C-alpha cells in the first residue's frame, strides 16, 4: 500500500474541483435556460395567454355586473329565497333606466336570454318609459309593468347572472343546467344537443382512425419490407399528399365525389349503380376526405417502427415451426404496437379537432365540435358558449396528448 494519509491541503483540491464543476454545471444550465427563454416567453404571451383567456371566458359572467354593479352587489347579498328585498328592486329600476339611456342594456339582455328566451323583450319593455319614482314600491311598479318581475324564477336567473363567474356555459356544453332549487340537472331533451355533438366528434375521429390503421398498416408493412431503393420511391406517394395543402386535397375530394364527378361516373360505367349517388356533403365525404388527409400521419410512425424490426425474428419463429400467420401475430405484430399506438393517437388527436374538412365536405349533421366553436364565435356571438365548448374540447385533447406523451414521448412526434 503506497497510499499516504491525505493531508489537509490536497483534500481541498477535490472540493475546489467539485465547486468548479458545480459552477460550470450551473453556467451550462443558465445557458440552456437563456436559449429556451425567448421561445418560452413568446409562446407564453402569444399562445398560452390566448388559450388561457379562452378558458377564463368560458366562466366569465361580467355582462350584468358591468352594467348594473349595484344591482349585482345587492343580488349577491340576497339569500335567493322567494323574491328579493325592495332594495334590489330599487337599484335594479335605477340601473335599468340608466342602461336604457346609455344603450348598455343589450349585453345584459343577451346574457339573460340564454336562460329565459324572452328576457330581451321583458327587459326593454320594462325599461321603456320607466318612471323616476315608484308607484308604491318598486316591487309593485315593476310587477305591474311586466309580470315576469313577480316570479321567483326570473330573480333566480338574475341572481345567477350577478355572480362574477358562472358555470352556466360549461354546464350547457355538457347538456346540464342548474334548476330553481340549485342542483345540476340534465336539460330538457329538445335542448340537449352538445353531448351528441361531442359523441359525433369522437365517433368520426375514431372511425377515421380505424380506417387509417386498416389502410396504413398493410401499406407501411409492405413499404418496410421492400428494399430501401424501392420503398423510398413509393414513399414519395405517401409524402406528396402529406406536403400538399389540406385545401387542395379537400377541394380535390369535392370534385371527385360530386354528382357528375369521376367516381360517380366510374361507378355507373361499371354498372354498380344506376344513377349518381350522393357522396359529398354527407358523412361519406367526411370520412373519405379525412382518412385521405390523416393517413400519412398513420403511415409515417408505423413505417419508422417497422423499419427497425429485424426480419430475423420472424424467420426464427418460422424456422421453429410457426406458420407465417402465427409468426406475424405472435412475433411481428407485438413489435409494431408502439407504432400503432403512436399513429392511432396522433390521428385521433388531430381528427377530434378537425374543422375545415367537415365544414367543406360534410352536411349539417356531420359538423364536429370545432364547427360549433366557430359558429358561436362568428355567427351568434355567444362567446361564453364558444369558449365553453372549446374548453371541453381542449381538455379532451390535452388528456389524449398526455396519454401520447406517456406512451410515445413528445419528442418522438416525428413528421416525416
Amino acid at each position, binding site marked *: 500500500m503506497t497510499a499516504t494519509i491525505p493531508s489537509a491541503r490536497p483534500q481541498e483540491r477535490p472540493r475546489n474541483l467539485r465547486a468548479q464543476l458545480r459552477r460550470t454545471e450551473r453556467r451550462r*444550465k443558465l*445557458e*440552456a*435556460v437563456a*436559449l*429556451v427563454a*425567448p*421561445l*418560452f416567453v*413568446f*409562446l407564453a404571451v*402569444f*399562445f*398560452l395567454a*390566448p*388559450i*388561457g*383567456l379562452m378558458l377564463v*371566458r368560458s366562466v366569465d359572467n361580467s355582462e350584468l355586473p358591468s352594467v348594473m354593479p349595484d344591482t349585482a352587489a345587492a343580488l349577491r347579498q340576497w339569500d335567493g329565497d322567494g323574491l328579493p328585498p325592495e332594495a334590489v328592486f330599487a337599484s335594479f329600476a335605477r340601473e335599468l333606466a340608466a342602461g336604457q339611456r346609455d344603450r348598455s342594456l343589450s349585453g345584459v339582455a343577451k346574457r339573460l336570454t340564454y336562460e329565459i328566451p324572452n328576457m330581451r323583450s321583458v327587459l326593454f319593455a320594462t325599461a321603456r318609459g320607466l318612471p323616476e319614482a315608484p308607484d308604491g314600491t318598486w316591487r309593485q311598479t315593476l310587477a305591474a309593468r311586466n309580470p315576469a318581475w313577480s316570479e321567483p324564477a326570473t330573480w333566480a336567473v338574475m341572481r345567477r347572472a350577478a355572480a362574477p363567474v358562472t358555470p352556466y356555459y360549461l354546464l350547457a356544453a355538457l347538456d346540464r343546467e342548474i334548476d330553481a332549487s340549485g342542483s345540476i340537472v340534465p336539460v330538457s331533451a329538445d335542448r340537449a344537443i352538445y353531448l351528441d355533438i361531442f359523441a359525433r366528434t369522437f365517433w368520426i375521429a375514431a372511425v377515421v382512425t380505424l380506417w387509417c390503421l386498416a389502410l396504413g398498416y*398493410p*401499406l407501411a*408493412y*409492405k413499404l418496410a419490407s421492400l428494399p430501401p431503393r424501392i420503398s423510398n420511391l*413509393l414513399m414519395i406517394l405517401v*409524402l*406528396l*399528399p402529406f*406536403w*400538399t*395543402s389540406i*385545401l*387542395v*386535397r379537400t*377541394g*380535390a375530394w369535392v*370534385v*371527385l365525389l*360530386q354528382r357528375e364527378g*369521376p367516381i360517380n361516373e366510374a361507378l355507373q360505367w361499371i354498372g354498380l349503380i344506376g344513377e349518381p349517388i350522393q357522396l359529398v356533403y354527407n358523412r361519406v365525404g367526411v370520412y373519405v376526405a379525412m382518412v*385521405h388527409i390523416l*393517413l400519412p400521419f398513420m403511415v409515417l410512425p408505423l413505417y419508422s417502427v417497422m423499419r427497425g424490426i429485424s426480419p430475423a425474428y420472424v424467420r426464427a419463429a418460422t424456422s421453429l415451426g410457426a406458420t407465417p400467420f402465427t409468426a406475424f401475430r405472435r412475433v411481428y405484430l407485438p413489435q409494431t404496437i408502439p407504432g400503432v399506438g403512436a399513429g392511432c393517437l396522433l390521428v385521433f388527436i*388531430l381528427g377530434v*379537432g378537425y*374543422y375545415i374538412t367537415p365544414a*367543406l365536405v360534410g352536411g349539417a349533421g356531420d359538423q364536429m365540435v*370545432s364547427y360549433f366553436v366557430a359558429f358561436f*364565435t362568428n355567427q351568434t356571438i355567444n362567446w361564453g358558449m364558444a*369558449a365553453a365548448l*372549446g374548453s371541453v*374540447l381542449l381538455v379532451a*385533447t390535452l388528456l*389524449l*396528448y398526455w396519454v*401520447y*406523451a406517456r406512451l410515445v414521448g*413528445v*419528442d418522438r*412526434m*416525428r*413528421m416525416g
Partner: protein
Amino acid sequence: MRPILNLPPHATATQRAWHVGLWAITALVLGFLILPILVIVPLSFSSGSFLNFPLPGLSLRWYEELLGSERWLSSLRNSVVVACAATLLATVLGTLAALGLQRARFPGRSLLLALVISPMVVPLVIVAVGVYFFYAPLGLTGGLVGLTLAHTALAVPFVVITVSATLQGFDTNLSRAAASLGADPATAFFRITLPIILPGVVSGALFAFVTSFDEVVVALFLTGPQDRTLPRQMFDGIRENISPVIAAAATLLIVLSVLLMTVMEALRRRGERLRGIR
C-alpha cells in the same frame, strides 16, 4: 417467377395469394393517396367551366383568370409575407430552444418540451378563438402582424422537433474542440454547429413555411377582406362555387409541394451522407 413477386419456388398457394393480395392492397392505398391530387391537375387546363371529365378542350384560361385577378394575387402576396415572417421567427426561436433543450437537463425540461410541442396538438379552432379574443384589444386583428404571430406559434414545434432530431446525431465534442482551439461560443456555433445541423434547420424552416402557408382556420378568424390569405381565398372558393380557377390554384400549390418535397429529400440525403462520413 417475376422478380416483383420474389417468392421461393416452394411457396404454397396461400403464400402466393397473400403476397399478391398485399401488393394489391398496397397499390390501392397508394392510388387512394395520390390519385385525388393528380386528378385535379388536368381539370385546371379545361376550356370548359365545369370540373368534370371528359375535358371539352385544353386551355390556359383559368390560369389567366387566376393570375389576372387582384383578389388571388393579393391573397398570394399576403400568404407569402406571413409565411416568410413566421418562418424566420419560428426558425430562430425554435433553433435556439432546441439547442437549449439539448444542452442541459434542467428541472421541468420534459414539461417545457410538452409545452413547446403543444401548438401542434391543440385544435386549431381553439387557437383561433383564443387569439381572436386576445389579439383584438391589442389591435393585432385585421392585419398581418397578428396572423404572423399566431402562425409562428403553430410552426415552432416543427422547427424544435427537426432541429432536436439533428442535434441528437451531432457530436458535441466538435464544438468543444472548437472552444479548446480558442473559438468563442458564437464563432463555434456559426462555424461548426450551424453548418452541421443546417439540414435540420432548413427542413424545420420548410415545415414552418408550409404550416403557415397552408393554415386557414386562424386566418379565417384573424383576417378581413383586405388581408385574406391564399388558403382563405381557396376555402371561400371551395365553399361557394368550386370552379376551374380553384383547380388552377390547386395545381400551382401541388407544384409548390413537389418542389418542397424535393428539397426535403435532398436535405435528408445530405444528412444521411454526413452521418455516414462521421
